């Protein structure tokens, strides 16, 4: 079921401009329509062994008089080199990324206020509603630009207010969905709707539309406003959302209470632990049941309950010592684990244009997932045909571990070798790991 969800959910690129308001609509709804913007993004793409620019369009909603705009992380990411925003008045202004959080698929932009002032432009802002008060069957509206049809308002209901799905690569290859559940709506959401608000009849933003099922009718998903409110505050404060990580992979306990001799609605199953993670080092393992985290009892009977538990850990400051009350077989014991900073599998990317080689730094999470000894090396994410890396025989998925017999500990080290190659081309020896096979190649000028 989970894998089905992961495969068939796609990311909507949606933009929206809406000015026409229904006569019977509330004042709040009219105000909302004036706060919804279209976002045009040009961003760098590294994948092809060369630096290329890609354009995309999305939507967003203005949240304050200071011009803060909330949108999806898959619409505006740190790779963006140019962001322009089309206001409800159809005027275009530029904007800058304040920060992004792919785990919740949210990004925050700030309109260039100096430009707004100089050009005497006007915009309005929307307000958050309380997404916890939503109930299945409640009427909601999605505002956006599905399939390029601007100023589209669609109406539907909340189909489910607590939908679980986690996607390991849902936001342009980055992980998402581990720390929150989602709102499901049947308000028509199509490619072109992403980043736009899901609102109640009074115009309050209760969600940010993000995804939908391919080939299904009206199965759309939005990030709840209460999650968005927290993330927005963090992004305003520090530009990033920092989370704690233990390395526990949780599973739903459903049907297993009998086996573990647990009363219902008690405990969270540990399906496994990431190799080398704090939880693994502390001795936790698959089959353990976590009963309480720092004294707070947890209940992970159904998978919908898991993101909240994950978030309980993630919300702790990095380096916090966590006490886990664990049941292993008949035995009850406490584990003390210190949290690490949560990292994405996706490391920093770069392109070495003289070699026609795009790479991504091996991150701690990637190394753990792929059973690598450490974070040495860079992952090849693309080669350009006919360039030295391609001619030598490198291909996507290879990990370059050594260059001229020196371990690749950072991108900077590799950049130095590349600069030297660009200045004075000479053969470069690279040691590459492909799955577990180690090969040598020479990059020739």
């Amino acid at each position: 079921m989970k894998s089905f969800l992961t495969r068939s959910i796609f990311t909507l690129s949606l933009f929206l401009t809406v000015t026409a308001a229904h006569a019977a609509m509330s004042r709040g709804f009219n105000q909302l329509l004036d706060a919804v913007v279209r976002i045009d993004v040009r961003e760098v793409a590294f994948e092809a062994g060369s630096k290329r620019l890609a354009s995309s369009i999305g939507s967003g909603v203005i949240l304050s008089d200071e011009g803060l705009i909330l949108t999806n992380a898959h619409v505006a990411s740190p790779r963006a080199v140019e962001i322009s925003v089309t206001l409800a008045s159809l005027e275009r202004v530029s904007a800058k990324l304040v920060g992004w959080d792919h785990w919740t698929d949210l990004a925050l932009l700030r309109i260039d206020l100096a430009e707004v002032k100089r050009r005497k432009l006007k915009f309005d802002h929307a307000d958050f509603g309380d997404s916890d008060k939503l109930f299945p069957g409640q009427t909601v509206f999605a505002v956006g630009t599905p399939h390029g049809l601007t100023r589209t308002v669609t109406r539907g209901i909340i189909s489910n207010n607590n939908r679980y799905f986690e996607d390991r690569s849902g936001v342009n290859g980055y992980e998402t969905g581990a720390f929150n559940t989602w709102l499901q709506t049947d308000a028509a959401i199509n490619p072109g709707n992403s980043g736009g608000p899901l609102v109640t009849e009074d115009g309050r933003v209760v969600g940010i539309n993000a995804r939908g099922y391919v080939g299904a009718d009206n199965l759309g998903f939005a990030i709840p406003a209460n999650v968005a409110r927290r993330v927005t505050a963090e992004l305003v404060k520090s530009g990033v959302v920092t989370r704690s990580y233990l390395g526990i992979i949780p599973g739903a306990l459903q049907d297993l209470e009998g086996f573990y001799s647990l009363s219902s609605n008690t405990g969270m199953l540990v399906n496994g632990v990431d190799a080398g993670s704090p939880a693994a080092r502390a001795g936790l393992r698959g089959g353990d049941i976590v009963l309480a985290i720092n004294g707070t009892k947890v209940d992970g009977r159904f998978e919908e309950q898991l993101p909240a538990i994950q978030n309980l850990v993630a919300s702790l400051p990095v380096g916090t010592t966590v006490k886990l009350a664990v049941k292993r077989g008949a035995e009850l014991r406490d584990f003390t684990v210190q949290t690490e900073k949560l990292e994405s599998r996706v490391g920093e990317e770069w392109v070495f244009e003289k070699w026609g080689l795009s790479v991504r730094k091996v991150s701690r999470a990637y190394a753990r997932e792929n059973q690598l000894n450490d974070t040495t090396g860079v992952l090849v994410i693309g080669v350009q045909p006919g360039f030295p890396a391609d001619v030598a025989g490198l291909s996507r998925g290879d990990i370059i571990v050594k260059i001229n017999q020196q371990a690749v500990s950072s991108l900077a080290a590799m950049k130095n070798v590349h600069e030297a190659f660009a200045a004075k081309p000479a053969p470069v020896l690279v040691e590459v790991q492909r799955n577990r096979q180690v090969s040598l190649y020479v990059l020739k000028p």
Partner: protein
Amino acid sequence: MKFISLFRRSAVWAAVLLTLGLHLRASEVSALWAERVKCVVAVEYYTETEADRRPSISYGTVIDANGTIILPSVAVNPRAMPSQLKDFKVYRPGNPNSLPAQYLGQDALTGWHFVRVDEASRKELTPVTAFVVKDTPEPAMADEVWGIGLRNKDEDFQPYLLSSHIAIVQSLPQRTAIAQQEVAGPGLPVFNRAGAFIGLAASSFGSNFIQFSREDRGGFPVIMVNVEESGAFQTAAEVLPYLSRVPQNIYGRPLAWLGAYGLEPMDPDVAKFLNLSGQSGVVVSEVLDGSPADKGGLKDRDLLIAIDGQPLPRFKPDRVILSYIDREVQRRHPGDTMALTVLRGSDRVELKVTLGEEPRLVSEADRKYFDRLGLTAREFVSDDAVARRVKSTELSGVIAHYVKPNSPAAAGGLRPDDWIKEIDGVEVKTYAAAAERLAAIEAGKIQTECVLLVSRGGVTSVLHVKLQP
């Protein structure tokens, strides 16, 4: 389809006869044909698994008066266990009646599978050695050669003539002649004009084609492999010395073992960079814990450049060196030593490795099918540890070798190749313990459900398997 290709071939052959007048004449062939066709056979057997029973057919050559037959290595799926191979039958060309036979095992050096016809039927066959002529030179470019092809089973494996000229002779690493067209069914002998045995047809090489269709005008590159006929054969000198390597048991043991994993050849550019031009070298990706290579001092990422003081020869293509090294190990016995020269960084290191006996293979692993659960549990062997990147010396748990679709095990989320580490919260230390536990569960006396801790792709999960009452 097959008829057409056969027709074309004979048409070409007739044309060549007319123009050059140098070629096999009908009278020559018929004299040689009748005797030589008795050394080729088709071998049919069944592979029995939990789910099905499938026939396979391959070609074989009779090698001695004991009715021993060799089949090419591709004749048997390497994942199949010898005990799953059943009902070997040998068919003589053009004869619908089969002769019963036994499977003897595979030889690691040549890759051949050996089969032996039951005693009563042996006189029907002639060994290929009857056509060995002493001092026959290695075939050379332009030599005319011929062999036998066999039609399908529904045509009684009717034999037919194939002939061609040698185009090139290469070391791969065995001396291999490649003819202009197909000269024999894979695994069948090749003869010269005088009828002397000069080689054994290998699996045919792929040919590159571009496939066009009305929908896709661009053309799509495909590689086509002819599985019925081959144009490549290993020369007699690569065959005759090894005919005595009849396996002592169906597992082909003893098997010499080095324990160097993931050998990767270097290309000429790398060789030049490392001042090793004119020779070959291979990177040893990993040295397995506790293996002979480990004990002999070989390290991960060493660059192997010589064996017994002989620099590794350069072959074309580069990957041929891997077969060369494999053969260097397999021609030795457990206990033999092998002197290795490696480059480690910029140091040249000389090592002496005493080869060991290959650990138990997947094909030798104990296994049992539990019908109610829908699961075959298989002993965890060294290769499983290697595949899962755990120490090959720490063998525990069992592998779900087969999971029956829609069975209780499958419904519980178990998949083939899952590594079962705990059953009902109890660590599985040995195969025997797991088999006993699963048998008890299946008997249903104590419980009708079980909880498995399995590892898949390095990630563990807890699975709940319920038996139907």
